[in-house]
């Protein structure tokens, strides 16, 4: 707070946003958002994709992308930000409000040295007129964000890790000592362990500087664990607002509850994730009703007669649900029930004979031009039994995706053995045609990115038809009936066969992708982060589908994920992959609750937990 001297503080909140409405051309993005932030306070704006949370943040800083426009009032310490000129705003940005964005790799100028990003923020100050003085200050500022290696300042962004970039960016954002920092998903693009470090750093800096902080996130757990107050944004309007602890323990809005419930807990395996049906609507489509009406289990006529206002229910608690009084009981009951644990799946451990998939000492090296080769997978052995669901957990760069791709023949390993159904399948090119077809009918893959997992030029029916036909030995053609039954199996109506991928939501696309993989009736699916790109509410639906299919089809899974909570819901056994090697293996419950390897321990500890103590053990609640 070294430069705060001389600033005169006005009474009242630091930031007040009133009736902020953002639109892109004629398309509304948010409708009348109100936000209040006191000095030194931390608030979170939580919402799924498309809720308008990032744009709200940008509108506050006055840097909406071209084509977007905002109306309403944003008042910072008495200054009406939306009415002052751009040159005035420039004197406020950085000095009073600063912002941190999501992707650490794109936030820094790729042609500028890391240190220069901080250096350029200091040039206006006479005491830093000399280069040497600035260099000293840059060093000090970097130290504040935990960078002690002085060499970092002299590197280019592409030479730094994501976490490093984010720290440099934070130091740059704070270089003029703002009173308010808006952090837009500051940790989302980072690895789990780095995420935790960045959030910890953010909280420390906030506390030390007594700075206002707005955290924009889709992650409820993160919001609860980091912030004092929570704004729940949905399709452009705020549905609930309140103290973090209160909202977490007793949500007043069905949507908040739904979100809380669909987020898979890491510390227990629930029998079924209570998913919210459907997907997030666009703000423009719900302009004159409760935004959540279409997905709500308690919807009544009254919910659709107008946009319900955010109304106070308790001290510092607001909800936009007009039926909150009537349904609060039901909401509470569900909240309580959610913490029930399902019985852990038990299976004789250590049995490896008759494995469906067996991998022995697998290694995969990518030769890179004029650079050192990349050792993606170093030496991995694993197996999956028939009907078994196995997790493969690791951060980016751990080699988990490469491993999965090797299994389905998309990559050819450099060394090691793969046995699928007893057939040597490490080199698809060297296999006989019959063997290759057999392996392909045994093992299929589901990919991460739902938006390009389907050929945009092919209808759903055509994609599934092709998959059915690709199944060598399939005597019957890809009839509409078979396509329809595949669709039904993943919970979609046969009418979807006519649709193009572009008209489907992410969840729907992922279902079609699963149906496509199932077309050849495989015994095992390699699922590469199949839900990580989905919204929480949709993620729950797809996870439930995976669980249902496992039961109905006796499918095996090799479930690749970075998210321990997700893995916990799906798998019986997990392998922890770190830098191309397996560092720990065991039943899911045991590994998560009692990790042996230091890396696994760090991974488990990195999962954000709420500031509140968890409700006591399930037994207590039932009584």
């Amino acid at each position, binding site marked *: 707070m070294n430069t705060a001297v001389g600033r005169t503080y006005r009474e009242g909140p630091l930031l007040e946003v009133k009736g902020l409405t953002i639109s892109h051309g004629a398309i509304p993005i948010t409708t009348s958002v109100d936000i209040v932030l006191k000095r030194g306070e931390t608030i979170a704006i939580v919402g799924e994709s498309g809720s308008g949370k990032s744009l709200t943040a940008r509108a506050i800083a006055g840097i909406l992308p071209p084509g977007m426009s905002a109306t309403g009032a944003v008042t910072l310490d008495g200054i009406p930000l939306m009415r002052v000129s751009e040159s005035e*705003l420039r004197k406020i940005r950085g000095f009073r409000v*600063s912002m941190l964005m999501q*992707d650490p790799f*794109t936030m820094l*100028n790729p042609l500028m040295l890391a240190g220069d990003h901080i250096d350029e*923020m200091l040039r206006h100050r006479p005491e830093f007129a000399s280069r040497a003085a600035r260099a000293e200050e840059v060093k000090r500022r970097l130290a504040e964000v935990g960078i002690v290696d002085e060499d970092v300042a002299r590197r280019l962004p592409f030479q730094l890790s994501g976490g490093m970039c984010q720290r440099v960016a934070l130091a740059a954002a704070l270089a*003029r000592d703002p009173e308010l920092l808006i952090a837009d998903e500051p940790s989302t693009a980072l690895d789990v362990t780095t995420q935790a470090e960045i959030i910890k750093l953010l909280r420390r800096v906030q506390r030390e500087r007594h700075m206002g902080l707005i955290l924009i996130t889709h992650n409820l757990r993160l919001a609860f664990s980091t912030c004092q107050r929570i704004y729940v944004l949905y399709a452009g309007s705020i549905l609930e607002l309140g103290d973090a602890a209160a909202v977490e323990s007793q949500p007043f809005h069905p949507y908040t509850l739904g979100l809380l419930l669909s987020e898979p807990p890491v510390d227990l395996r629930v029998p079924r994730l209570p998913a919210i049906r459907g997907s997030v609507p666009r703000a423009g489509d719900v302009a004159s009703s409760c935004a959540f009406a279409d997905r709500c289990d308690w919807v009544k006529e009254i919910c659709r007669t107008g946009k319900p206002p955010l109304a106070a229910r308790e001290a510092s608690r607001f909800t936009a649900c007009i039926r909150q009084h009537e349904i609060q009981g039901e909401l509470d009951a569900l909240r309580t029930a959610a913490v029930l644990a399902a019985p852990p799946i038990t299976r004789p451990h250590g049995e490896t004979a008759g494995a469906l998939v067996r991998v022995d000492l697998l290694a995969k090296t990518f030769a890179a031009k004029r650079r050192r080769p990349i050792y993606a997978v170093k030496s991995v052995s694993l197996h999956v039994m028939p009907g078994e669901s196995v997790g493969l957990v690791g951060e980016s760069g751990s080699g988990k995706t490469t491993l999965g791709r090797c299994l389905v023949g998309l990559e050819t390993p450099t060394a090691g053995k793969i046995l699928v159904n007893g057939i040597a399948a490490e080199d698809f090119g060297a296999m006989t045609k019959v063997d290759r077809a057999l392996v392909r009918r045994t093992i299929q893959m589901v990919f991460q990115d739902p938006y390009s997992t389907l050929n945009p030029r092919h209808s759903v029916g055509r994609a599934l038809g092709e998959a059915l036909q690709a199944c060598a030995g399939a005597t019957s053609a890809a009839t509409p009936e078979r396509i329809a039954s595949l669709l039904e199996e993943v919970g979609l109506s046969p009418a979807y066969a006519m649709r193009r991928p572009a008209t489907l939501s992410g969840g729907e696309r992922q279902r079609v992708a699963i149906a496509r993989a199932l077309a050849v009736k495989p015994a095992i699916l390699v699922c590469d982060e199949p839900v990580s790109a989905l919204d929480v509410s949709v993620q729950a639906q797809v996870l439930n589908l995976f669980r249902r299919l496992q039961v109905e089809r006796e499918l095996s899974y090799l479930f690749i994920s970075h998210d321990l909570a997700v893995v916990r819901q799906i798998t019986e056994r997990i392998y922890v992959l770190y830098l191309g090697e397996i560092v720990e293996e065991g039943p899911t419950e045991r590994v998560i609750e009692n990790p042996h390897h230091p890396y696994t321990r760090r991974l488990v500890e990195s999962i954000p937990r709420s500031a509140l103590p968890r409700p006591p053990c399930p037994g207590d609640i039932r009584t």
Partner: protein
Amino acid sequence: MTGSSLMVVVMRRIAVAIPLLLVISFGVFALVHIAPGDPVRSLLGARTSDPVTLAAIRARYHLDDPLLVQYGKWLSQVIRGDLGVSIQGNQAVTSIIAGRLGVTAFLSLMSTILVLGLGILLGAVAAFRHGTWLDRLVVAFGVFGVSAPTFVTGIFLLYVFGVMLHWFPIFGPGSGFLDRAWHLTLPAIALAISVMAIVVKITRAAMIEELSRDYVMFARARGLSSRRILFAYVLRNSLIPVITAAGLIVVGIVAGAIYVEVTFSLPGLGALTIDAILKRDIPMIQGTTLLFAAFVVLTNLLVDVIYALIDPRIRFCRVAS
């Protein structure tokens, strides 16, 4: 570290450029043989074909040797600066080229300055005023520029500003620096328009992309001055695609110069080339083509080096991995 990796980049580019020049020179050499009819005829033009002359030509161009040997001998002559004797006027090709080089160099340089200066400026203005009428005007100019052949714009400029308005001289290259600049203004503009369109297009696209980048947004969010953002962020970063396109620009200017010199009847290398083609003066065509091609290849080489100097990602790539 940095220096040596830059050297590696330069050496690698040179390693590519040398075989390229060899292949091009072979193509140019082969013109004599590609041209329909007898090679001697091509080298003789319509000169007297008495046995003495024929023998002299066959010996001069080693026409009785195997093709590759002929090429080798030709190349060694070329390297020593001997491009043969032109059919028209029976003069050394090199001395004729030397006499014509000035106009073309002046013209190309003038329009390069126009292309880069005005092109980047227009592209930047359009990008900053993205979506406004100004932007659309610049885009329209760009589309017009790539669509309108140089010779058509040249004719129009000549008749509007030379003939109707009498603002500029209408023939001759002028003598002395200012007079020459004055005479070459219209040709340089005609030449610049089509090539400028490319620069405008690239700059505008690159700038629009830069402006929407996270780091520009982040810089704005930190309250950096618009000048700082313009120069240190947007302009510098978006110049890289412009520099990568410099090869395209050079080719455009060189090829355009041919048309412009013909349109404005300027005694430059381009007009010389066309004249040689129309008169089938093969040694002269060989000479000018080789010069143009070598110029383009060497410029590309230079561009690659500049690119490596400007983009630190290349300089640092050794450190990175």
